[in-house]
Every structure is written in C-alpha cells, then in structure tokens.
C-alpha cells in the first residue's frame, strides 16, 4: 500500500449527497480481473456523453461539459470534496481503486458509507469526515478561487486551508499508523497466527458443526 503522510493538493468539488459506488465505477467495468486501470472510467456515466464499455479508447470519447470534474480548473485534483453518505451502495473495492487511479488520495465529506470507508484505508486513500459547516465553507472557497488547494497533514490530523484556518479530523489510530507506514493488513494479522490457531482449535472443539 502507498504511504500517506501529508498531501498538498488541488480540490475538486462534487456537490451531491449519496454518491454511490455504481456512480463511482459503473458495473460494466467490474468485469476486469485486475486492480488497476479504472481511473479513466471513474464516474463514467456522468463524465462522458456516450455509454462506456470495457476496452474502449476513453481518450476518444465525448466528455460531458456539464460534469464538474471535466472543467479544466479541476484537472489534476487529488482531493475530492463531497457531501453526505459518499460511497453508499455496492461493496465493490473497484470504487476506491478507480478514485485512486484517477488521482484522488484524499476525500473530504460530511459522512461516508461504512464499507466504502473501510475499503479506502486498504488502498492508501484517506477519507476525512468534517462537520457540515466546514464542508459548506470549503465548497464556497473552492467555487470562488480557481486553483484552490488544501493541505492534509495526517500525523497531526489537520486539514489546513491556505488562509491559515485548520480543522482537526478524527481517524482511527490503528488505521493512521498503517497509512503512515504503508503497512499491509495481512502481514500485520499474521503476526497473531498462533492466536488464530488456538482460537480455531477451541472453536472447533466447542462448535464442531461450524467446521463440517
């Protein structure tokens, strides 16, 4: 997993509640058996005028001029600003893969759906929950200042605006440590292999019918 320590990045706004994982990466692209290459199809149905299918040359497809991420001022954004319940719906990890491949390393929202939130951490994408008032303020600033960037400092858990205003955000300490070090969960868990074996043996003795 890619480490995440600090990021100073261009912010792109997606001013909607309930952006679901089908919208982030439509199902026809889930037929891939790979983990990468989903970026050009992130938000496919909103982003292009035609219907996307796997295997198309996306650079030749007509862009939807009304979709906010297509505006020139947001090209190269690495922070996505959005509203409540972002990432609801299907558990597909293809959603954070697509966002990461698109270039987003951090997401700021009023709230996230649980499974999506969890999937982000496995991929070095940082989902940050801020109070509605802070999110509202950021939407206003981004809208009125082309090239608006913010700094995300994971060790101190701060989102710093260029005007000096900084907001603290919460993050699970274990997840934070994993992100800062780029640790892989499986390796960490296998340090407890003996405990897992012992638990399993006890469970098998007590409830043999779960082990048929």
């Amino acid at each position, binding site marked *: 997993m890619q480490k995440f320590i600090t990021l100073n990045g261009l912010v792109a706004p997606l*001013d*909607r*509640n*309930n952006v*679901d994982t*089908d*919208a982030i990466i*439509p*199902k*026809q692209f*889930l*037929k*891939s*058996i*790979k*983990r990468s290459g989903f970026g050009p199809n992130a938000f496919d*149905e909103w982003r292009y005028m035609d*219907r996307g299918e*796997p*295997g198309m040359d996306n650079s030749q497809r007509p862009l939807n001029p009304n979709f906010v991420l297509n505006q020139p001022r947001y090209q190269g954004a690495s922070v996505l600003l959005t*509203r*409540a*319940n972002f990432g*609801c*719906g*299907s*558990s*597909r*990890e*293809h959603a*954070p893969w697509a966002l990461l491949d698109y270039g987003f390393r951090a997401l700021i929202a009023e*709230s996230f*759906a*649980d*499974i999506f939130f*969890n*999937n982000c951490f*496995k*991929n070095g994408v940082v989902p940050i929950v801020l109070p509605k008032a802070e999110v509202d303020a950021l939407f206003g600033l981004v809208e009125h200042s082309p090239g608006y960037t913010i700094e995300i400092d994971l060790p101190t858990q701060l989102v710093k605006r260029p005007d000096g205003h900084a907001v603290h955000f919460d993050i*699970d*300490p*274990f997840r934070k440590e994993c992100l800062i070090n780029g640790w892989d*969960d*499986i390796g*960490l*868990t*296998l340090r*407890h*292999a003996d*405990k*897992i074996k012992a*638990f*399993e043996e006890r*469970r098998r003795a007590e*409830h*043999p*019918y*779960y*082990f*048929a």
Partner: protein
Amino acid sequence: MEAQTLYEKLWSSHVVHQEADGTALIYIDRHLVHEVTSPQAFEGLKLAGRKPWRVSSIVATADHNTPTDHWEQGIQDPVSRQQVETLDNNIREVGALAYFPFKNERQGIVHVIGPENGATLPGMTVVCGDSHTSTHGAFACLAHGIGTSEVEHVMATQCLIQKRSKTMLVRVDGKLGKGVTAKDVALAIIGRIGTAGGTGYAIEFGGEVMRSLSMEGRMTVCNMAIEAGARMGFVAVDQVTIDYLKGRPFSPRGDDWERAVAYWRTLHSDEGARFDQVVVLRGEDIQPQVTWGTSPEMVVPVGATVPDPAKESDPVRREGMERALHYMGLTPNLPVTSIKIDKVFIGSCTNSRIEDLRQAAVIARGRRKADNVRQVLVVPGSGLVKRQAEQEGLDKIFVAAGFEWREPGCSMCLAMNADRLEPGERCASTSNRNFEGRQGAGGRTHLVSPAMAAAAAIAGHFADVRDIL
C-alpha cells in the same frame, strides 16, 4: 452477568485478539465467494506466496455475470466469461467446501444458496465480497459485505480487522395488513431512518412483525439493512429458524444437531439489554411501498403522490430530490398509481426465493401483462428455487401471463449480463437499489415487493395490490 444484546454475544464469541484501542481480530466462519470481487484477491494471495487458511470455510458460485437464458450457448460476453472461468480455475486450484459453478443445478445468487444449503448457520460470522451479505443475518449471524482486500485478508488469515459497531434495535410491532410483505417493511424502515440512518450501527430487527415473518421474509428485511446504511442486520433465533435449517445439506446432524440447537437458542438479546438506539414502527401503519427516486429512502406508500421538492426546506436535499425527479422523468404531486411502466423485474437476492415467486404468482394467475409492458422477467434465485417453482406450476402461471421464466442469477438487479433497461425505460423491480443506471444506463427503477411488481405488470402502471387480492 449483565444483559447482552445479540450483537454483543455474536461479537464476543469471535474475538481472537483485541488491541487496547478496541481494534479486534474477528474469526470468520463462512466465506462466500463469487466471480466479481474475488479474482484480485486470489491473485494477491498467489503473488504473496500465501496459502488459504481454511478452504472448508469457502462456498462459491458464479452469479453476477451469468446469463439467464440460452445456457446451452454458454456465456457470450467474452469479458464476463473470462471472469467466470477465472473463478472456476481459482477454486479448482485452491479448493472449497462447495462450489456451484455456472449451470450447476444448485448454482444461484450467493445469498440465496448459502441459506438454502444450510451453509449459513446461526452464530456464524459470514462474509462475502458483496454488500448484501447482510441477508444472512436473518439466521442470527454476524454477516456483512467486505471489499476485495478483505476477501484476500480472510482467505489468508481467516480473520478480519474490525471495530465494534453501535447497536440499533428496529422493532416492528403489531401485525401487517393483507398484501403487505417483508419488502414493504424493509422499505418503510429505510423511509423512516434514511439511507445513512444505520451507518456505524449493527441493526437487530425485532418485534411481533419480525417474529411472524418466515425465514425468507426475514432474509428480505436483513438484505436491505445495507440500504439503510448498516453493514449488518440480524434477527434472533426462534423455532422458525430452527425448523428452516433442519435437514439442509450442510446443517448439522444427529448429536451435533442437538448440540447446535441448544446453543442457537441462546442467540437472542437478553431481557433488558441496552441498545444505542431504538426505532419503533407499527405493522398496521405500513402500506405497500413504491420508491419514486434514485435512493431507496425516496419511498412512499402506493396510495401517495410523488413528493414536491418545493416543500423541502433543506437546500441540498431539495436539489437531490429535483435531480432524482429529473432523472426519473417524474413531476411532483403525481399519484404513484398513475406512473406507467415499461418493464418488470422479479428477482435478486432480495426477492427471488420461492415465497416471493408464490406471491407474484398469486397476482399473475389467470391474468395477462398489460400491452404497454414490454418485458416481465422472472428470475429465480437459484436452481433449487427454479425446480421447486416448476414443481408447483408457477412457471406455467407466469408464462401464461406473458412473463418470461429465466435461469437463476443476479440478472437485471445490476445488469452485468444481457438483462438490462434501455435509457429512459421504467421498471417495477423487486431488487434493492434504484440508483441511477443500476439496471442499465439511463434506466429508471422503482423498488417494490414481488406482489406489487406483478400487479404493476398486469395493470401497466403501479397499482395497489390490496385491490387485486
């Protein structure tokens, strides 16, 4: 001992290790696997040179991509075929307790085949790379969806890294009226608490209405827990649970059965157990439901009208409503029963079990679909459901009504195969998500119960099933 909730009992019986901050390793009993969210996990495992921890926990099937007709022609779409064949190869290499590949007589939607084969048992932790894994909570399991990295993690370690959820009791008291089903209960709950209302919570569904539902009805409600934002929803064990499980292929037998049942009977919240939140609905207040928008919380009773954004005070919500109405091609204040439909889909892990098909058949019997309805797909949840329905003659009722009787799979629930809506087409669907494009780009989905879907097929527009019964 202090009174415990069912969640606390299930959680504490699976903790392998706990850090000081509450992060825990949770042991996983059952791992359900399908073709879409597993290839990258198998690949990751292989690349890291890791072996699966316990293959006898794995039950696998191909369901999301598989076609629902012309099985003799195999899978036509090469990309879908590759994904299904990748699963075949992975399971061949790694092994599993059971694999129900494409065309197998027990193949079907992963959340239908687990319970029907007795592979989902009370007291288990059940995971699957699919958000509707909450379905299995009907059996008092801790069951939830996971991402592909976690699929790999479970394969490699038989554990998940988790934190305890908050607990919510959703109690549905009283009785349901005629024509009101588990699906209507699920939609009414989501209408009440919203699609993010359950975020961070594990929901226990209780009350007289839940007790009165069959296992299939309970599965329908738990299935939709995720649409209320909760990763998991569950129901306590009672005699209904135990009767359902007796004699299934992977259910315990003999002495093991007695032992298991004795344990399972403890799987309920103790008298006086405390929940972080309690929500109460009355069964008598629940009407047949129809969603009007692009989120399952955008739902109204069939007798109501399409809501008017002008009456919504929150600007972000108002804009969301306006956008949804625009996408759905609807105007405010329209009576729901005046909305005409183009297609009907009866199927999905929410409503494709035998009782769902029976409910639809009661309405379809001796009637015909309206001329403006182009297609009515009936897609059983599994090969076993299909066979049972055919034994009962339901297929003939459907075909006589002008409905299409298909092979099992996810089908138009997510339209990864050839079954899909065309842009602008409007569908009455028994599935669980009405998001933009869910059933095909530009398609418009209204979520309803199987009986309401059949009633819409016959009327050509939404209709109150209680007027037909």
